């Protein structure tokens, strides 16, 4: 007679073995999606030119690594109000949040900030969202570890363990986080969000992991937002921050945001 314990063990082992077999699920996405072209400059020297998709997708089974530091460069001079609003709408559509006409409680992953210089009368606007700090205060204050920074620099809320205390919202100097007050249904399957948890810009982490660009970057005017790996010297972003004057918002706080701005 087979004891229940043995039976359970057997089933368990079988399932584990099956899991191992399927681990070589090699449905790996193309290393670089989009058009890639290589030009030989000289013997042994190649110039690789990528299409608009600079970010290379990691294999599905590979964890995010600290060799990468995702960042954004936003050129305020290339934005007018409508451009910023287009980015906001793109984010809403991508991640499934919306303006319900209740500004006190509505989610805001990205918003338009209008700046006005009283003396010179100069006015301009820019998109503002989670700045993906290297030393995020929201992570420091979180009592459960839900507020977290992924190894590649993307700051996220692990909603599975978020208790909705909203300390992170208090701690964030950029007011980047929102609290979900209402019951939601039919969320995007790649962007789960729900009542009682805090949320913010995820830098479109599902797209980044897929080798694509964040939705706002795609919606922005050409060259107004550059997304890429700050740690990769050949990336367009790294080249730009090396050669042009950029600044971090509230750099005095020493949070080292991954989002940088130009012309502010």
């Amino acid at each position, binding site marked *: 007679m087979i004891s229940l314990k043995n039976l*359970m063990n057997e*089933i*368990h082992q*079988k*399932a584990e073995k*099956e*899991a191992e077999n*399927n*681990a070589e*699920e090699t*449905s790996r996405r193309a290393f670089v999606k989009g058009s890639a072209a290589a030009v030989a400059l000289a013997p042994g020297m190649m110039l690789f030119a990528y299409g608009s998709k600079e970010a290379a997708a*990691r294999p*599905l*089974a*590979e*964890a*995010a690594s600290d060799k990468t530091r995702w960042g954004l460069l936003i050129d305020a001079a290339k934005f007018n109000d409508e451009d910023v609003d287009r980015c906001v709408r793109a984010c809403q559509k991508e991640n499934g949040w919306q303006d319900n006409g209740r500004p006190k409680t509505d989610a805001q992953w990205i918003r338009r900030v209008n700046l006005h210089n009283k003396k010179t009368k100069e006015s301009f606007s820019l998109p503002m969202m989670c700045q993906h700090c290297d030393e995020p205060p929201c992570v420091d204050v979180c009592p459960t570890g839900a507020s*977290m920074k*992924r*190894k*590649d620099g993307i700051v*996220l809320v*692990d*909603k*599975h363990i978020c208790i909705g205390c909203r300390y992170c919202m208090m701690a964030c100097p950029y007011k980047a986080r929102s609290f979900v007050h209402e*019951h*939601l*249904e*039919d*969320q*995007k*399957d790649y962007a*789960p*969000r*729900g*009542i*009682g*948890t805090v949320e913010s810009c995820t830098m479109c*982490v599902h797209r980044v*992991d897929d080798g694509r660009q964040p939705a706002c970057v795609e919606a922005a005017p050409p060259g107004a937002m550059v997304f890429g790996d700050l740690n990769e010297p050949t990336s367009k972003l790294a080249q730009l921050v090396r050669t042009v004057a950029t600044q971090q918002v509230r750099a005095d706080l020493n949070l080292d945001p991954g989002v940088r701005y130009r012309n502010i």
Partner: protein
Amino acid sequence: MKTVFNLKKHLVALFAVLLLGTGLQLTIDPAGAQPAWMPSPPKALPGTKCDADPKWMRTWHMRKLDHKRDQTVRDGIRTKKFSLKRCITCHAVKDESGKFLTVKDERHFCRSCHDYTAVRIDCFDCHASRPDSKKGQGAMLKNNPHDKTGRSSSLKPGDKTVASLQKYLAGETK
């Protein structure tokens, strides 16, 4: 106050329990139909294979889901195996009009057992409880050739008639 063991009272209680048990036994149809209080989870999409032995999944699915969620959110490991999204794709149930049911409907796959066991899950506070209607596939509640119990076409909201927990508990899925 001192509690006194009342043998007579206990015997009466025991008898009542036995009687109740017999009563329940009697509700099982000799022809093999299942008692109404047992859950009857809808079959998965025909032609699909579960990520682990269904028998094992029935007991331990929550472990895999927990493990997978941490991997995905915290490390960005996005393999499909044991992901909730994948579970929902195969286990989605359609209503008579061909629309996917949400977890609000008691015919939803997860609810069929979770209602029975009174285990509240909050997965669907955040996650969509049905596949994207454009992309997703689901088991048809009506005329599902995979469903050999043949009871699903007559299952209506509020209908507590269920068929197969006994087999389910015994680990028979076919």
